[in-house]
């Protein structure tokens, strides 16, 4: 399946991926200024730039083949799509028990800061069907969306 891979040697640490991810998953996905200034709670990015400078890279859900979060989920909200392989959290079923956060080996699941007691994670922007916004907006080509394991 296509996944987002980070090329840490080109990550400038600007966190534009976080900014655009937060907007894409906000109440105003097409208006960055409204998403940040009008929405009551600051939107949460689902990608996080891990930093220990000079090393930095963007990390988001790896959509594991054998995703532990889907097994740990007590309400069946966390599901891996058998066709696309994308792991998503159905927020209407999520009860906010945080077991997924506990078992995720990458620390890629977070609490949603938007007021709902639900888990928040990367959905590969599958709702818009195109390139994930983090990849689209990386100014230095440090994120790639590919179905091949990225090799340097």
């Amino acid at each position, binding site marked *: 399946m296509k996944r987002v891979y980070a090329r840490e040697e*080109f990550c*400038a*640490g600007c966190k*534009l991926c976080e*900014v655009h991810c937060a907007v894409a998953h906000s109440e105003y996905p097409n208006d*960055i200024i409204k*998403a*940040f200034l009008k929405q009551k709670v600051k939107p949460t990015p689902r990608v996080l730039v891990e930093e220990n400078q000079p090393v930095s890279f963007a990390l988001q859900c790896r959509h594991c083949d054998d995703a532990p979060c889907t097994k740990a989920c007590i309400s069946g909200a966390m599901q891996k799509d058998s066709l696309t392989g994308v792991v998503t959290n159905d927020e209407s079923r999520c009860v906010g028990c945080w077991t997924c956060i506990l078992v995720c080996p990458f620390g890629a699941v977070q609490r949603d800061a938007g007021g709902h007691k639900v888990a928040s994670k990367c959905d590969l922007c599958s709702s818009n069907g195109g390139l994930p916004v983090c990849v689209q907006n990386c100014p230095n080509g440090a994120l790639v969306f590919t179905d091949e394991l990225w090799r340097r």
Partner: protein
Amino acid sequence: MTLSLSTPDFLIERNRDRCINCQVCVRQCANEAHIWDEEEQRVKSDDALCVDCQRCVTLCPTHALTIRKYPLEFRENANWSANAIKAIYKQAESGGILLTGMGNDQPYPIFWDHLLLNASQVTNPSIDPLREPMELKTFLGRKPEKLMVQDGKLVEEMPPQLELEVPIMFSAMSYGSISLNAIKSLAAAAEKTGIMYNTGEGGLHKDLYKYGKNTIVQVASGRFGVHPQYLEAGAAIEIKIGQGAKPGIGGHLPGEKVGLEVSQTRMIPEGTDAISPAPHHDIYSIEDLRQLIYSLKEATQYRKPVGVKIAAVHNIAAIASGIARAGADIIAIDGFRGGTGAAPLRTRDNVGLPIELALAAVDSRLREEGIRNQVSLVIGGSIRNSADIVKAIALGADAVYIGTAALISLGCHLCQKCNTGKCNWGIATQNPLLVKRLNPEIGAERAANLISAWEHEIKELLGGMGINAIESLRGNRLMLRGIGLSDRELSILGVMSAGE
């Protein structure tokens, strides 16, 4: 000293209606002009630290930032400009030489802008480069006095030639003055477009040997990184005598920029200043230069052209004639607008000659002496666009070097702070945090795009003149007319006035 009299050069304007406090600007400014105020939970700026590199402006996702010239005015004075006053404040504080980066930015005349190109009308047909073949291929190196052909083959052996698909090369920029990612970008772009890049005096990093056939290796007064494999690695060798931004001064790389890899490449201890002597201490005459040229030719079995790069200075025509007679295959002349990673400000702004005059003088002199065929002429020093190149070739150049233009294609915004090592675009820096901002894959594509774009434009201009091979334009000054120039300038340029 307690109070600094320096005032900011630039004003950072932040549109609060658009700023989302995402802190991208804070993270991208190596000068720390943007600051995150934890208590106020918002971004603020310090104008005094801004150098107008526009990294923040370009990356700001909401276009909330604008940089302006700082509006503070000194009392109007035609003699004492703000720059003149500020320079004195700085030197009164530091007691040091003023340093700067990039090329001469003073308002001297730009002769390219006083030269107009010809086009064909009625009496000779113009050519459409989209429909008809157009030849830009250029060979640099010594050409024989005459050609003898027997059974369809050349009788004499041709001296070694440098083959270019387009008469453009990336000029010498050392590993040290610019980052490895910047060099990788240029090297890969040179390979892609069939041209050359030049190592400068910083040696050849191990990752760059694969670009050998597109590399000119330089031998400068410091001899940094020069060894037999290095000389063998390139397609040509260039002896650097001087550069346009600082004629008479050697290169200077401060020890802070000499990290492990730079030190290995230059073959000097880590952290030591890499100071090239002002002259080559084994070259005090044309005869001495001849010895070095032939030493290098011996070392590479006469298989590679050897060039000599000099800055355009007052006696340039006589000097170039001497260099040709010393056995150089290529003479590269750098005009006073040529860029640099670091130079004393007063040298950069006051020493040297405009490349247009130097080129015309040298080409005329070599022709008069009947030795023009013995060398190829490459010129540099602020070639800004393809029209400048066409004019340079019509004035007599075989090819041009582009340095500043190449760096601009990689993202340089000409803030002239290369010497600080804080290049926010990852070009003129060795700080690993900043270097990785330049992805060489993107850089190579951008630089190669620039070359291809200029290639198309050169063909268009040639076609308009009814010329289908760049060779027919070389030294063809009838294709040029001067406008707004004095008789003396016209005669040095060897062109007629517009209207004639």
